[in-house]
């Protein structure tokens, strides 16, 4: 992501120090991850110490300090989905694509999200891929669903 684009995002929020989280969110959304040099640029332009930005970037699960995959997979691990068997869905996903929640496959095909409750308990157990909800699934459905995402 080039310096100019970063500056545009910073200016969108008025260059205020308290906009740092919103700025990082925009960058994460566009770039899908937060490279170190970008963090340094944001730190300098907003006058927020790099230590504070690193704290924020590692604290919040939405931010990624490593490149993300082309497809975001989210197995809901909320209480209701858990009750309906989401642990087995997650296990199947982990076995199939070989990564843990918070990680990305080495071929950058999939990133596996952390599993917070999505608030659509009726659809559980569910898996969301690139914003599309696959409802009331079984472990047997997982492979077929993921096949569609290259």
């Amino acid at each position, binding site marked *: 992501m080039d310096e100019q684009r970063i500056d545009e995002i910073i200016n969108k929020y008025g260059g205020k120090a308290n906009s740092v989280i919103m700025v990082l969110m925009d960058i994460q959304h566009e770039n899908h991850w937060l490279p170190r040099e970008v963090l*340094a640029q944001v730190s300098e332009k907003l006058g927020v*110490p*790099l*230590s*504070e930005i*690193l*704290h924020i970037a*590692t*604290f919040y699960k939405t931010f990624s300090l490593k490149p993300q995959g082309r497809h975001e997979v989210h197995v809901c691990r909320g209480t209701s989905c858990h009750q309906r068997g989401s642990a087995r869905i997650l296990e199947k996903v982990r076995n199939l694509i070989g990564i843990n929640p918070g990680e990305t496959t080495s071929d950058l095909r999939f990133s596996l999200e952390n599993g917070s409750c999505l608030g659509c308990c009726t659809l559980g157990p569910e898996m969301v891929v690139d914003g599309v909800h696959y409802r009331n699934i079984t472990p047997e459905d997982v492979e077929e669903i993921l096949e569609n995402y290259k």
Partner: protein
Amino acid sequence: MSDVLLTIDGKEVRAKGETSILDAARSAGIFIPTLCHHEKLDPYGGCRLCTVEVESRGRTSYVASCLYPVENDLIVRTRSEKIAKIRKVILELLLAHAPDSPQLVSLAEEYGAKPDRFEKESSFCILCGLCVRYCAEVKKKNAIAFVDQGPKREVNFIPEIASKECWNCKECFSLCPTSYLQAAYFLTEALAFPQRALKSSEK
């Protein structure tokens, strides 16, 4: 700021409003143990060792004395069965990380904390934050950061800043109650400081 009159362990204490109970107690010669507290730093309230009982308008609660401001007619108890239990458990939890820390060991004796109540943890760091806060508030270099959250929380040196700033400082080393900080510094220096990468590419 007007003066405030409160009672600490049965003793009447006068203090300026906005003073913490910890400071008010100290000025009255009453000792409250602390771990993450330092006069040069903003009070942190992380270790919770300084927890005391406060009673106000008939209600009792447990608060961190380093942060709680004095109030008129406040009744404070710095020692009680519950407080002793709180301090004992906090020490036992921390001793699982740093069983050799002199501060922890001496406090453990006083509170009957058993050093091997919990299985040994792999990290020495007790996350008191003295190093992070000292570097931010006193040295204003921000070379050390808290990263991650919850049980995964860590203290990390920021290589690009530490490599420039730490070589003639290292004042945080003496603040660390455990053997973590120095070890972390030298490990970071060996593995991640930029000039090392430069030096090896020059070869």
